[in-house]
Structure formats: C-alpha cells, structure tokens
C-alpha cells in the first residue's frame, strides 16, 4: 500500500485561555512530514540528528506511552518544545501503546481551576500526581496510535535506523485554524476558534406543584472531564462516579414524591464544562441572579431570542435566595484499599447550622476532612455567587486532603478505576440524607437501586450502546465538553442525564399524541424532549458556557465581556477558554525516496525524450536520402 492512513488516532488540539495558547499547535505546510525516529530517552535526540543518511531535517518522533506519560517523558517533551531549533525539526510526535498502565499519571494541574475559585493563593495540592501538561503548548502535533498501528509504526522505524534506501515517513494533516493566535480574545475576533462549553442539566422535584417552596435543597455534581488527548476523557471516578450517584439518588427519591409531602423543593444539578473554570455552575448562578430576557420568542413564550435561551424555566421555578442546602457529590468509589466517605466544607463560608443538619442527615460513617478549604468543585461557584452564610453546604468525596484518584483526567480513569458496589453504597447513604433534608422524615430507609446504578455506569463508561439514548451506537466514552453548542444532542453525557432525569420528573397528564423530537424546540411550549418524545417534565438543559462570553447577534460571533462587570456580582473570576477550529486531522505513513533518486529518474526521462527526438530526426534524414521523404505536401498530389 502506498499510503497507510493511521486509523482511530487520537490527538491533542489547540486551545486558548484568556492569556495564552496551550495544547498542540498543529502543522504548517513546510513542516508536516518527517522521517520516523524512535526516542525513549532524551539522549537519543542528538543521535537522531547526527544520522548522516537523513537528508531532510524534520523528524517524526515515536515514543511509548510508558515513557512519554511519565515525569521523565513530560520533562523531555517540554525541553524539546522549549528548544526552538529542535522543535523546528519535529514534524510531530507519535505515541504508541505497549499495553502497560503507569502506576499513576495525571495531565491536570495539582490544583485544578485554582485561579477561578475561592482560593487563588491556596497551597493545597489536591491532585499530587498532576503534571499540568494539559496546559503546556507544543508546536507540533502529538498523536496517540491504536495497538495495530503501534506495531506497524515500530516496524518501520527499524529501516530508518539502518539507513535503508527509503525513508519511512509520517505526514500529519493537522491544521489548527487558530494556530497564529496567542489568546482566546485574538482568535475569537478572527473567527478561528469557538468558546468551550456544554449543556448542564437541572431537574426540580417540587414540594408543591405551581409554587416555589420557601427553601430549596440542591444535589449537585460535575459531569465533564478532560484529558491530554481530548477524546480520551473517560472520566471514571472524575466525574462519572458522581453523575451515577446523583442519578441514583434522584431515582430513589423519585419513588417517594407521590407518597410523601415534601417541605422543601429539591433540585438536581449536573454541571457541564466545570473543568474549564466552573463554566457550567457559573453560568447557571449568573443567570439565576442576573438574567433578563430582552426579546422573547413570539412562537414559544418559554424561549428567549435575545439573549438566546432554549428554556426560561429557571426564571419561573428557581429563586436563588431560597437555596438553603447544597450537597455536592464529588469523586466516589475510586479503586483503592480503603473506602471512606469524607465531607468537605468551609466553616467561614457556610451557614453552620444548616451544614450540621446535612452532616447529621448523612448519618454515621462519614469523616470530616482535615482540609480547611473546599476542594475544586461547583460549590466554590455557589459560595462566590450566593451571599455568605446564606446556605449550608457539604461536598461528599472519597478523598481527604488529596485525591485518591491516581489517574485524574487520564485515559486510565475508566470503568476499571471505580468500585461500582461502593458507588451504590454511597448512593443509598446520600438518598437517605437528601430525603431527610427535603421531607424532614428521618425514619425512611431508602436504598439505591444497584441494578440502575450498573446500567448508568455502563451508559457513561462503557463503549456499548445506552438504552437511554434512542438509536444509540457503540461509542468510546468521552466526557470532554467540547466547543459550546445550543444543540444539546451534541453532548451525549448531557443527553443521557436529561433522558434519565426527564423520565423521573414527569408530572401531570402526559400528552395523548406521541410527538417525536430531537430537541425541546421540536416540542410544544410546555413540554420537553425526553428520550425522543415530547413530555411534560421538570428537567431542563442550561447553557454551560462561561458568562464571560456573549454572542453578538449583529456580527454573528462570540465576544468577551468587560470582566469588570462581574466584580459586583461575584468574587469568582469568570473563565475564558476557547478551542481552535480544526480544518482537518489525519495521519498517514509512507515510504519516501531520497531526493537524488527522483532527480535521477527525471533526468533519465528527459534524456530519453531528447534522445528519441534525435533518433527520429536521424531516421527521417536517412529515409529522405534513400527515397523521396519530404514534407506533407509531397504525399498529396
């Protein structure tokens, strides 16, 4: 085969924050292919450069994931990137897998989202295995190979080491439209990137229909993850475990809504894009406090045209002043020797009495964390947007002062990194706690449905199809939020949550005619789209994009607000993250001749052409001398 296109490759992309670019900058035409060379130690790089048979001075480096995804490997990659001369020689880096798992690895920082939280000067290292490579910038693509292509690539390396007649070369087509920009503002104005965001989901189980109760309890979790390669955001313990718990709690409590009279409204929130400066929770709380619909839709009173919102249910159903209890579920059931439940809260921020009420509802078997600060979580958004001391809050997690998760935001944080039985156990405990808070009943002993827990774990962490997604196909689980879109169907995680919660929060008489739908926009005004059907439900999507962004309808592009507007609203700094547009992404390998070969063939072709012309001219001359060969006129009388 002339060209072998490497299939199922996963690559890092180019992203931007407020001040810088990070990720992989992609290729330029003059440096998009390189001779394949293996390197598993930093010292091998000079040996590669000194190979006299390599005429082209660009290389494609190939390294094992064992080496590259280690401290030594990351350090080597950084030193290559910082050495301009060397980096200019690198067309790209291929990473092959040899099937082994590192003892621990995390591409995330040691304190994720620190500058966007309540403690920007904190010295706590919640994620001690963090390398921060997520936020490094590389001037070349880094592509991870599947197992088949890994062995193919390794076999090709050997001929290059031996200086055979051909160079085994790898070409990257990895065009990042925002390549030349240095920050989000610059690339947004050129239209070469889009804000990062997703779709959060919130559901409300009201104490009384058509009324807002005096107090509200919120059970919250994060739903997105990240990874060095965005497509590898498996998010096992961080944070699909919390999604599963939150859904299991909702499922357990939903069976009680008809039987018991709640005294408080109960809301479940599933915040998306939290990885990117708590975008989901910030947007939600910002809207609760500040949203005003300038132009309502004339076709559906539930939709706002400017600013665009697909549902205004949050305006009607939620009064932020009545939020009195917030329980956030964090990483739960991470594989390890010991399974403990820790509660985190900041005494200086919470309503102490209500917080004690939450802890009391949780019962025995929970341990107060030694940390004086709350971990990186959506709770930090709640505390920054809502008045200090106005609500009680607790974060429930399986870690104390540092993450139990050795693979935070790594591809190895998958289904094998969680204990499903522990998740079910914690779900039962939380179900009872939340139920106690909303109903005041301490006698009920709720149990989570472990079968339901297993199904949801399969949906979010297995590559098999999920029964909660109509016409689902087998897809590798990926919980990176991606670029923002108003179309919630682009977010599989959000769709699963919406369909589960939507079926648990049906109310009133359902429509007699079954109307199929893809989104809420396909449904009548007072209905939402759940599992492909329009129903009456109290589950809604909410945009999970940093409130720092706004969409300019006149210029039809995203822009960044003046951040000083936020000073009066929140103590939290709003995040700015964007992802470059991709023009194309692909990798192919091929054999390439040394330059002299093609020149020789061309020279031979030219000589042959000239020689044949000369021979023909000679033959013509001979024939004309022998006979009467002349110009064409002599052939016609």
């Amino acid at each position: 085969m002339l060209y072998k296109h490497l299939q199922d490759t996963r690559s890092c992309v180019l992203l931007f924050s407020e001040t810088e670019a990070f990720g992989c900058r992609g290729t330029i035409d003059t440096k998009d292919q390189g001779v394949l060379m293996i390197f598993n130690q930093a010292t091998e790089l000079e040996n590669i450069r000194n190979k006299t048979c390599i005429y082209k001075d660009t290389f494609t480096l190939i390294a094992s994931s064992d080496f590259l995804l280690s401290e030594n490997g990351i350090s080597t990659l950084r030193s290559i990137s910082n050495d301009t001369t060397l980096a200019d020689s690198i067309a790209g880096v291929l990473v092959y897998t040899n099937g082994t798992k590192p003892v621990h690895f995390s591409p995330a920082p040691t304190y994720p989202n620190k500058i966007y939280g309540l403690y920007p000067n904190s010295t706590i290292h919640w994620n001690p295995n963090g390398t921060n490579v997520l936020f490094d910038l590389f001037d070349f693509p880094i592509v991870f190979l599947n197992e088949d292509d890994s062995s193919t690539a390794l076999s090709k390396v050997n001929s290059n080491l031996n200086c055979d007649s051909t160079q085994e070369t790898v070409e990257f087509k990895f065009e990042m439209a925002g390549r030349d920009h240095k920050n989000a503002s610059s690339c947004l104005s050129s239209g070469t990137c889009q804000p990062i965001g997703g779709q959060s989901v919130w559901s409300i189980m009201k104490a009384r229909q058509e009324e807002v109760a005096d107090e509200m309890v919120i059970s919250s979790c994060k739903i997105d993850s990240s990874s060095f390669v965005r497509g590898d955001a498996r998010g096992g313990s961080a944070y699909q475990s919390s999604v599963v718990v939150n859904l299991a709690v909702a499922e357990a409590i939903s069976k009680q809504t008809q039987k018991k009279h709640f005294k408080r409204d109960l809301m479940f929130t599933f915040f998306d894009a939290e990885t990117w400066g708590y975008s989901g929770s910030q947007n939600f709380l910002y809207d609760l406090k500040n949203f005003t619909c300038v132009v309502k839709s004339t076709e559906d009173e539930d939709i706002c045209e400017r600013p665009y919102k697909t549902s205004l249910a949050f305006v009607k159903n939620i009064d932020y002043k009545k939020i009195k209890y917030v329980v956030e579920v964090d990483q739960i059931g991470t594989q390890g020797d010991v399974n403990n439940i820790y509660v985190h809260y900041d005494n200086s921020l919470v309503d102490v009495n209500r917080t004690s009420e939450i802890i009391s509802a949780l019962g025995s078997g929970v341990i107060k964390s030694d940390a004086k600060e709350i971990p990186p979580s959506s709770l930090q958004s709640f505390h920054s947007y809502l008045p200090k001391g106005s609500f009680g809050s607790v974060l429930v997690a399986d870690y104390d002062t540092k993450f139990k998760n050795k693979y935070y935001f790594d591809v190895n944080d998958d289904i094998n990194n969680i204990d499903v039985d522990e998740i079910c156990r914690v779900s039962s405990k939380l179900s009872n706690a939340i139920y106690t808070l909303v109903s005041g009943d301490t006698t009920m002993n709720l149990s989570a449905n472990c079968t339901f827990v297993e199904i949801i774990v399969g949906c979010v962490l297995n590559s098999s199809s999920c029964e909660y997604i109509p016409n689902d196909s087998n897809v590798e689980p990926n919980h990176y939020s991606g670029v923002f879109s108003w179309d919630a169907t682009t977010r599989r995680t959000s769709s699963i949550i919406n369909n589960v919660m939507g079926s648990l929060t049906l109310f009133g008489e359902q429509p007699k005619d079954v109307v199929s739908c893809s989104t809420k926009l396909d449904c009548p005004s007072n209905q939402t789209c759940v599992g492909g059907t329009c129903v009456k439900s109290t589950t809604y999507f909410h945009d999970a994009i940093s409130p720092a962004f706004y969409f300019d309808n006149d210029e039809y592009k995203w822009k960044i607000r003046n951040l000083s507007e936020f000073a009066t609203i929140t103590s939290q700094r709003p995040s700015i993250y964007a992802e470059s547009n991709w023009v194309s992404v692909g990798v192919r390998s091929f054999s390439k001749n040394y330059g002299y070969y093609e020149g020789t063939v061309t020279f031979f072709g030219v000589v042959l052409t000239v020689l044949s012309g000369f021979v023909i001219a000679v033959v013509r001359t001979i024939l004309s001398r022998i006979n009467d060969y002349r110009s064409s006129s002599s052939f016609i009388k």
Partner: protein
Amino acid sequence: YLALIGNALIVFGPIVSIFNFYLCNIPQLVIVFVAAAFFYLLSTCLTSAFYFIPGIVNLPYLLVSIGVSIQEIFRFALFLAYLFTERGYERNLKVKLLYGKFAWLHASVAAGLGFATCHALLLNGNVLSQSYGPGTLYLPNCPTITYFTHHSITTLLFVLLNISWMIIGFQGYIKKSVLRIISLLVLHFAASLITVLNNKKDSCLYVLPTLASLVVIGAIISTVELIIICNKDE
C-alpha cells in the same frame, strides 16, 4: 511531483517525440494513429469482458493469451480497415492515400504508435497519477527501483514493441507471409506471457532484460523490413 514528471517522460517522451517529429505533419498518418488507438481500445474492451468469467483471474496465462489473441485479431482488422480505406481513396478520388516507397512503413509506424499510445495510457495512466505525492512504493519483484519506475520502463518497452509488431504485422499481411505472422505472434505472446512472472520475487532481473531483448529483436526485424523495402523497386 518529480517522480510523476520523470516517470511520465520515460513513457510518453518517446511517444511525443515520434508523434511530433514523424507524424504530426502528415494528416493521413495522424488519422491512422487515432484509428489505431481506437482499435486498441476496442480490443481491450473485448478482452475485459472475459474477466467476468468466474475463476479466470486465477489463470493468468490463459487470460493473457486471450488478450494477445484479441489484440492480434484487431491488428489484422486495423490492417484491413486501412487497406479498404486506401483502395477506396484511390478508386474514388483517383489519388493515392500515401505516396512513396515507404508509404506502408509510415502507415504501420503510425498505427503502431496509436496502439502503443492507447496501451500506455491504459496501462500507465492510473499508476502515474498515484506517483504524484511524497510516497513511493517498492515491491518484492523489483526492490531496487520503485514500482512506478518499473512500471514506466515496462510500458516504454511495450511502446517500442508495439511499433515493431505493427511494422512486422503490416508487412506480413501485405505479403501474406506466414513466417512474418508467426514471428509476430511468437514475439507478442513471449512478451506478454513473461510479464505474468512479475509477481515473483526479484523477477525484474529477468523480465525486464527479456522484454528489452524482444525489443532488440523487433527492432532488428523492423530494420530488415526497412532494408527490404529500400531494395524493392517502387
């Protein structure tokens, strides 16, 4: 793109030279050239029909023999068409189609070039287009030169063979010479069947030299024909 240019020149450089310096000033020969190309195309179309026979692709020798036979039938058909045209031209317009002692030689060269050009386009067109790009390919049958160069050289040899075969063929049909016709068939079958060995390792070490030898033999026979024509009274 250097590989594309080089390989294209190997195949089409001689064709263009012959056409430019030999044929293009003589309209009748250009028509013969085009007609011959068409006849070759027809022969290839007919040969391709045999590929639908189940299992025949596993019998390359049979398939090649069928192709060669059909080509020879069309070569004869081309000769008859040219003869018919020439006689009709003389009968109706009272002038000759081509004058001179070498009229039949020129016609056979033009026809041979037509066959060769169509053969080259069909055989090498697709391969040439794939040579555009940075990648190359070496096959076990010829590990020292690229697949594209090997293909171009083979095509070039067949271009030269086609011209010499047409010269031998036309002379054989005019003179009704069994010896010439048998030589033509032997040369054609030998050249085509030897290419079946191209799937063997290092086969280019004997296939290409064999083809080159056949080119030399064809050139010698064509030269002998030329000498015979020279010595013949008009």
